[in-house]
């Protein structure tokens, strides 16, 4: 475009008095006429009117104009109007520029001379700029013919029905288990006093049945990408654990569920069970299980359903408790006695008083259930045989799981009895052989073959004998011994050997003065056995300090009670001989220096600190290693320097396919429960191996740690002590092997189980499964992620209510009978906690009630805005109180807002019913002498008043939902200063957002009542339908362009783009970036950031902008 051919038309608008009264439009027009390239300049009262627009069209024809400048209001108002004019006249609409001489000039400048000068300059800038403008074409993209409605309250329901009835498909996503929202919780609605549920539920049923609506309940939107007409939405369907199609709503499950938590629907005034239906008319009408993560189950290495059996014990269902435990492990009695119970360390009850005695409860269930109860298992369906080497806890658990899964399992045990360390390590007084054998016998009775006295010399040979897989769990039965002079003298033993011999019933010759070296459980076991074997003095020598000992604290204390002496920071240097036996021990004192990998100080001998102790027996308990003879000839299985087998920690595979290993032989000494967990892990691996399934997939451990779980301690939880375990008196036990811990009684067990806080809510006790007739409960359901293609989105996510404790002067929660308005709705509801009777906390009927308006509204200390509907619902509640109780009702208000249809009439009706309206803000509510006293000012009388009443209802205002910040960011929309979603224009576009294709319905945008919500929702639905019906949408061409010759591929722009519209492209040799013009919104961040100046935005080129600046500044 050259200077000579550019013809600009300039139009100065007076906009009535808006511009005309401040700016001298005639002078501006005259000045404009003198500017370069201006062919015609005019001024007119209203350029946006038809005559105004016609004027422009006429001039285009007559003068051959090819550029137009209008100086008037903001382009946000009328840019589209004038662009349409150019289009109609056959000129590209982007040859148009607006100068804002109203919002930027006449409305903000007082001095008329200044304003006129400024207007002239703005016009100069526009004229200079328009010269450089280029013709641009909008592009059209198709619109996917489906809509997403987020939120199933009345707004979402209304909008979904409108869109679905028009013939388009709607996905309605609701995060609760049922649609209905807040309206389902209301009793009667103003002003008609319609029952809320009666007018809502027909619409809910329609939604549930509508062929065009896919209802995704108990689901949340977790990600949105794309652009108007072409959104990609990710929805997470939370596991309901109940199959929707099958549940008949019969309600048998709630009768047996042992866990109760406050009901959200009833505002905490009533409890519900862990399995529940939100309310009777719920859509979907199925039940749902509220199941969170329980700290005890996560911490248990075997992930036993701890909370489940505790809940069953609390109900007295001991048999069912044992069934639940035995679903996962065969050694309930054993674990109940010897487990180190890491679960108790994470039990959240310790935040109140002490953790639950989980292990003791497990023991109680195992000891007291019906001994002949059968163990559930499947049929021997699988043909493959599996060999397990070692019948300790790892081997037994693996065999147990595999066998119940249908495999044929043979367990090989080298010793004359089964049980591994359980039989030959742990002494009788901790774990009676009778108890152990009873549980092993139960496994044998199932059909698992255990071959005793059969040592496997070569694990590889097993594979050749027809076993398709082998699990090695031989434990670590070789004591490490100590390399000191004299170790081979008579009277020097290793603890592992010592314990094994005594456990097998064979006497070991020990003297009178016994020394045990070491600080672990084996050392303590050995010491206490030595006491029972008749030693006069037993001393433990440990090279570190008491707090560093790995033995269980309870065991250490028991040992000391039995007379065992503990010596710390000392270690033997050599054994002294006397008559060819151990006659004494030379020890050296130790000091601790730098911390080692276990977090304990490293011991170093103190120089010249040797001393002699007179002893005649030494038992070394300083570690154990496995006997690895069974793999010496198996090539491919690696071992560490410490002599343990290397395995993949997730799958327990060794280097040989089909051979797995776990337990002490793969980590050199751990606990019983860790061994059991290893056995179970191996069973899963072997099952997958034999089925040819990938061993690792889907087995990642949940990264959640118990200490990251936050638990709300229920209000009113009283401190209660943990019962001490009844024990044999010390005097009764040192000379025998009678079991020391006697176990809980039934009363103690049930009381202890009742202390459980039900952290996970659903305890997985599985009683609901038993009670469910249609068999629709599935506790293993997982969450599902859906990806949807959506054309337009409508947000109807609703609101929260202001919570009164933030205003301490109302003393909510400090005195009874001060309630919030939603709590009153539930009290009044026939389906609520009192069946519709308005009562005080003590059950009596109130004789006087005060309703305080504007709690959390119109208040600089909380929210400054008016919540719009509370006056009406407060008056409705006054009416209901009067109707149900005949009480004296006071309404304490600032102003009465009753502006809707029928609202003023309702106000008058309520006054006629005798409700007393007091104009004065309720200032304070206190309890005095068993009553509530409200202080307020009676502004009419001009003096303060005190009102003694029985009940106070606080009318709390609507606030934005707690999660609104997160939701806004998922949908890329903004929020206003109060947290509600931001509309595009408060007067003309209250249901649009600034993001194309996303609309708002209902209280998520601002407080409103039901009729306004329904209207707002249908309006937003109309916008959605407009998009979907058009089938295509124009995208503005104001997007970024890359000049590939300048682009160096530095990628700075990619990270900065807020719409992820830039990606790396180009060739192999020269990478350059590419802009997705449909995602690009033309914000210009990439243009500003590009160090090479390789990106420009159309219609905002440097040349255009600089011309505008020069134009404004020119003299």
């Amino acid at each position, binding site marked *: 475009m050259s200077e000579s051919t550019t013809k600009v038309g300039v139009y100065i608008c007076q906009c009535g008095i808006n511009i005309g009264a401040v700016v001298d439009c005639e002078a501006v027009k005259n000045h404009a006429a003198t500017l370069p390239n201006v062919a015609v300049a005019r001024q007119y009262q209203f350029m946006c009117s038809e005559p105004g627009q016609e004027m422009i069209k006429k001039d285009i024809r007559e003068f051959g104009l090819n550029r137009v400048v209008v100086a008037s209001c903001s382009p946000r108002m009328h840019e589209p109007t004038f662009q349409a004019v150019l289009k109609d006249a056959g000129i590209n609409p982007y040859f148009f520029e607006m100068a804002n001489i109203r919002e930027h000039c006449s409305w903000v400048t007082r001095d008329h001379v200044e304003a006129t000068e400024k207007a002239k300059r703005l016009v100069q800038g526009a004229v200079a700029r328009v010269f450089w403008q280029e013709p641009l074409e909008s592009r059209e993209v198709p619109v996917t013919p489906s809509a997403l409605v987020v939120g199933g309250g009345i707004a979402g329901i209304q909008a979904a029905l409108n869109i679905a009835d028009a013939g388009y498909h709607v996905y309605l996503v609701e995060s609760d288990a049922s649609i209905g929202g807040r309206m389902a919780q209301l009793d009667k609605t103003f002003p008609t006093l319609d029952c809320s549920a009666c007018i809502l539920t027909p619409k809910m049923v329609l939604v549930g049945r509508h062929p065009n609506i896919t209802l995704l309940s108990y689901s949340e939107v977790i990600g949105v990408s794309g652009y108007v007409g072409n959104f990609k939405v990710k929805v997470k369907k939370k596991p309901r654990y109940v199959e929707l199609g099958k549940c008949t709503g019969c309600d048998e499950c709630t009768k047996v569920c042992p866990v109760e938590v406050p009901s959200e629907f009833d505002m905490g005034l009533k409890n519900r069970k862990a399995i529940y239906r939100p309310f009777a008319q719920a859509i979907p009408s199925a039940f749902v299980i509220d199941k969170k993560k329980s700290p005890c189950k996560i911490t248990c290495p075997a992930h036993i359903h701890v909370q489940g059996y505790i809940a069953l014990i609390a109900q007295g269902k001991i048999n069912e408790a044992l069934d639940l435990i035995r679903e996962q492990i065969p050694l309930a009695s054993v674990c109940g006695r010897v487990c180190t119970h890491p679960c108790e360390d994470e039990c959240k009850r310790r935040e109140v008083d002490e953790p639950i005695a989980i292990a003791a409860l497990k023991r109680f269930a195992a000891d007291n259930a019906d001994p002949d109860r059968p163990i559930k298992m499947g049929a021997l369906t699988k043909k493959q045989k599996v060999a397990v080497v070692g019948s300790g806890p790892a081997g037994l658990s693996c065999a147990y799981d595999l066998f119940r899964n249908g495999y044929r399992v043979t367990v090989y045990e080298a010793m004359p009895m089964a049980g591994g360390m359980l039989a030959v390590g742990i002494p009788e007084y901790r774990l009676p052989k009778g108890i152990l054998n009873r549980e092993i016998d139960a496994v044998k009775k199932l059909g698992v073959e255990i071959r005793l006295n059969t040592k496997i010399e070569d694990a590889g040979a097993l594979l050749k004998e027809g076993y398709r897989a082998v699990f090695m769990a031989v434990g670590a039965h070789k004591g490490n011994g100590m390399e000191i002079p004299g170790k081979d003298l008579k009277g020097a033993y290793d603890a592992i050997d010592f314990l094994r011999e005594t456990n097998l019933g064979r006497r070991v010759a020990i003297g009178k003065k016994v020394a045990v070296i070491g600080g672990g459980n084996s050392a303590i076991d050995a010491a206490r056995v030595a006491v029972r074997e008749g030693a006069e003095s037993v001393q433990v020598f440990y090279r570190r300090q008491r707090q560093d000992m790995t033995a269980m604290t309870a065991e250490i204390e028991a040992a000391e009670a039995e007379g065992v002496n503990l010596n710390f920071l000392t270690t033997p240097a050599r054994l002294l001989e006397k008559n060819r036996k151990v006659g004494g021990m030379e020890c050296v004192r130790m000091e601790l220096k730098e911390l080692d990998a276990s977090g304990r100080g490293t011991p170093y001998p103190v120089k010249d600190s040797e001393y002699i102790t007179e002893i005649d027996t030494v038992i070394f308990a300083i570690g154990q290693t496995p006997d690895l003879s069974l793999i010496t000839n198996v090539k491919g299985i690696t071992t560490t320097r410490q002599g343990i087998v290397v395995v993949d920690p997730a799958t327990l595979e060794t280097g040989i396919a089909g051979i797995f290993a776990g337990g002490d032989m793969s980590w050199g000494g751990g606990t019983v429960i860790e061994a059991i967990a290893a056995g179970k892990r191996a069973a899963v691996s072997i099952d997958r191996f034999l089925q040819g399934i990938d061993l690792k997939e889907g087995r990642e451990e949940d990264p959640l740690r118990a200490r990251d779980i936050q638990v709300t301690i229920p209000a009113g939880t009283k401190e209660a002590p943990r019962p001490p375990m009844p024990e044999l008196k010390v005097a009764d036990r040192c000379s025998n092997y009678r079991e020391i811990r006697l176990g809980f009684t039934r009363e103690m067990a049930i009381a202890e189980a009742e202390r459980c806080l039900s952290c996970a809510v659903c305890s997985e006790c599985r009683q609901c499964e038993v009670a469910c007739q249609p068999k629709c409960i599935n506790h293993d359901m997982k969450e599902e992620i859906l990806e949807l293609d959506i054309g337009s989105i409508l947000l109807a996510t609703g609101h929260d209510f202001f919570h009164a404790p933030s205003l*301490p002067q109302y*003393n909510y929660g400090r005195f009874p009978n001060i309630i919030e308005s939603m709590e009153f709705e539930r009290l009044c509801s026939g389906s609520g906690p009192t069946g519709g009777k308005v009562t005080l906390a003590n059950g009596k009927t109130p004789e006087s009630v005060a309703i305080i308006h504007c709690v959390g509204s119109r208040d600089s200390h909380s929210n400054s805005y008016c919540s719009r509907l509370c006056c009406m619902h407060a008056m409705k509640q006054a009416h209901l109180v009067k109707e149900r109780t005949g009480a004296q009702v006071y309404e304490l208000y600032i102003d009465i807002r009753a502006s809707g249809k029928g609202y003023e009439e309702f106000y008058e009706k309520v006054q006629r019913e005798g409700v007393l309206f007091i104009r004065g803000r309720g200032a304070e509510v*206190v309890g005095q002498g068993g009553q509530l006293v409200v202080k307020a000012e009676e502004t009419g009388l001009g003096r303060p008043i005190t009102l003694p009443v029985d009940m106070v209802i606080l009318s709390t205002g609507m606030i934005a939902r707690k999660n609104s910040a997160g939701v806004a960011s998922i949908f890329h929309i903004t929020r206003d200063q109060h947290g509600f979603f931001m509309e595009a224009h408060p007067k003309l576009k209250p249901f649009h957002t600034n993001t194309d294709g996303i609309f708002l319905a209902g209280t998520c945008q601002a407080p409103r009542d039901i009729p306004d919500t329904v209207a707002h929702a249908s309006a937003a639905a109309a916008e959605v339908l407009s998009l979907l019906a058009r089938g295509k949408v124009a995208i503005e061409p104001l997007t970024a362009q890359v000049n590939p010759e300048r682009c160096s591929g530095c990628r700075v722009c990619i990270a900065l783009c807020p719409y992820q519209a830039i990606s790396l492209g180009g060739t192999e040799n020269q990478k350059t970036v590419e802009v997705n013009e449909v995602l690009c919104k033309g914000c210009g961040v990439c243009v500003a950031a590009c160090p090479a100046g390789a990106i420009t935005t159309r219609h905002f080129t440097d040349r255009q902008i600089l011309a505008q600046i020069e134009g404004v500044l020119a003299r």
Partner: protein
Amino acid sequence: MNYSYMPGCSLLSTAKGYDSSARAVVKALGSELVELEDWSCCGANAIESVSYLLSVSLPARNLALAEATGSDLVTSCSSCFLNLFKVNHRLKREPGLKTKLDEILGAAGLHYSGNIRVRHLLDVIANDIGIEAVAGRVEKKLTGLKVVPYYGCQTVRPYGEYDGPYLPTSMDRLIEAVGADVFPYLWKTRCCGGVLMTTETEIGVKLVSELLAAAQGADCIVTVCPMCQMNLDAYQGKISAKLGMKMNMPVLFLTQLLGLAFGLPSEVLLLDQNVVPMNPQLRQLQNA
């Protein structure tokens, strides 16, 4: 740590016990209240209705003097606290005020830049010195003594600088720190009537009798404002008549209570200067 300290006029006369016990308690805790030289009246309650500028300049004078010493200004009187604090608050929000204040103070050869903080003694003891330090200094635990924490209104309202405006807890924690029991009390910040006790005695008596009636069952009330202390302490005769019961509730300053627990001498605590005499428990604690 040393603080610049303005006792206020009441503490030189009717509330001498507050001043002397405050200085001694702070010293016993390892800090010192250094009296601001040439401090003057803060304006109390009445001035603002006479002249707004005077009501700002009077306290601002003290702030100018304190600023010159380089330290924040601490006061034990709640009225002084509020008046001084308001100067800073208003300077930030009223555009023309600084110019006027500069002129007025300038005429007296003073200048205030608005750079120091105003602290109430309760805030300094509870939050700067700290509860643990107070507990550590206790020599006789006031076990079994039931104490009402009465804050009055001016120290926590309207600005709520260092504690809640309706149910604050700083004094409660200090009472517990010296081993005593906090008597459950809803009227912690309810108005005592202020100057109305002298100008409209009937109103003052009505307000205070509610406060005292709710305190029945406690052994004493502690407060941190000389006006509150006077109103609760000096009119119990009239209040007894109004309530129809014999009222004998000792009203102490917080620092007198702390001093008792620290074992400070009675010449410093001046408990006998209070109108209602000490009851047997308090006397016993003093003599122990």
